[in-house]
């Protein structure tokens, strides 16, 4: 079967699909990096934010870190299975990863509902603005990744387009890496 451009042509020696996902991530680094760098400089310049940050729940943050690390683990196992040509197993691992994404979002939903009900909203002060913006942008990436993953899992189960399993994996690990930094920034630094 003639394979699409995504798996073949590449001036860099990298399959085009993967090159594309790396470009996405290079731009995401600047998006999240800019946001987190702004947060960091404001946090360092505003000692009063500490009293607001004291109200985030470290245990919930830690649990969600655990969930994302685990989902990254299943995503990379999906990649391994796909490279061995086992689309069914890859699809199963991708579904497990999607399950991780859903768990993360449900936990986040309860966390936010609780915080908002206590009056901590995006307009409360600078800390909460960054808190909801950064975690919200991240959550949007989790939602997008989970949806794309379902499509890829559907095809992978039929042994189609298996190269995509690696690509969504790379994206998913990046989402994980962003959270790895958000966790100490928003939850541990009190």
């Amino acid at each position, binding site marked *: 079967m003639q394979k699409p451009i995504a798996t073949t042509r590449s001036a860099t020696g990298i399959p085009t699909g993967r090159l594309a996902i790396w470009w996405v991530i290079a731009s995401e680094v600047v998006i999240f990096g800019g946001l987190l*760098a702004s947060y960091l400089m404001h946090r360092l310049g505003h*000692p009063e934010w500490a009293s607001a940050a004291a109200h985030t729940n470290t245990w919930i943050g830690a649990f969600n870190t655990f969930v994302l690390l685990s989902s990254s683990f299943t995503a990379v196992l999906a990649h391994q299975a796909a490279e061995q040509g086992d689309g069914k197993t890859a699809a199963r691992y991708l579904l497990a990863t999607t399950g991780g994404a859903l768990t993360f979002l449900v936990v986040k939903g309860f966390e936010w509902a609780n915080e908002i009900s206590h009056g901590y909203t995006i307009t409360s002060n600078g800390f909460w603005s960054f808190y909801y913006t950064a975690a919200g942008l991240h959550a949007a990436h989790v939602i997008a990744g989970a949806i794309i993953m379902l499509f890829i899992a559907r095809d992978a189960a039929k042994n189609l387009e298996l190269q995509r399993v690696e690509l969504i994996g790379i994206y998913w690990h990046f989402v*994980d890496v962003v959270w790895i930094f958000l966790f100490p920034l928003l939850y*541990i630094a009190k």
Partner: protein
Amino acid sequence: MAETHHPDYKKIYVTLLILLVISVAGPFLGVFWITLITAFGIALVKATLVVQNFMHLKWEKDIMKWMLGTSVVLMLLLFAGVAPDVMKHEGTRWVNLSAQAAIARGIPDEGHAEEAEHEEGARPTDAEGLMAAADGQEFDPAAAYAQVCAACHGAEGGGDGIAGQALDPKPANFKDSAFWEARPDSVVLKAIREGGPAVGKSPLMAPWGSLYDETQARAIVEYLKTFKSAG
């Protein structure tokens, strides 16, 4: 998919979980620099493990490492270029009044800044106290004034609070009977809830509507009037 590099993912996953436990446990020691290392040092290690082994950057072509490296450098450049302005609040010929006012609102008593960094709910002036006020439980306008307004408007309402010294225009002086003659209560109420600009006054008067509902703000207005008779 020419490469078939697959390290022992389970080992990496377990390592990541152990690092997670350490990063959560770190702050319990209560030592600042240990927390710094266990929080941010370990975050770097975790991120490196994920990027190298899960994203397979370790086995990727060099051009991709350079490309991602460029993004990281751009981010650091942004930080280096902007942070000095954001983190400092005054220089030789400039003062960032709104940043100073924000700090004064958050920490009315500067001597307690250190405590606030490490202790949760140590003082009634922190967010918890403010939120209790927002919940309307035993709302005390005098306490709210002391927590929120006094830093700029002064403990006695004379517009002479510590944080207000540098402000231009000066914070309102509630002792001044001309102040009360010049505007109806509704304007003062609006200024408290929606901020100075809402009534055509200084933007340095922040909006407090998210903390105080209309009834509470009205109680604050009544409290402000006590300064007038006192003065």
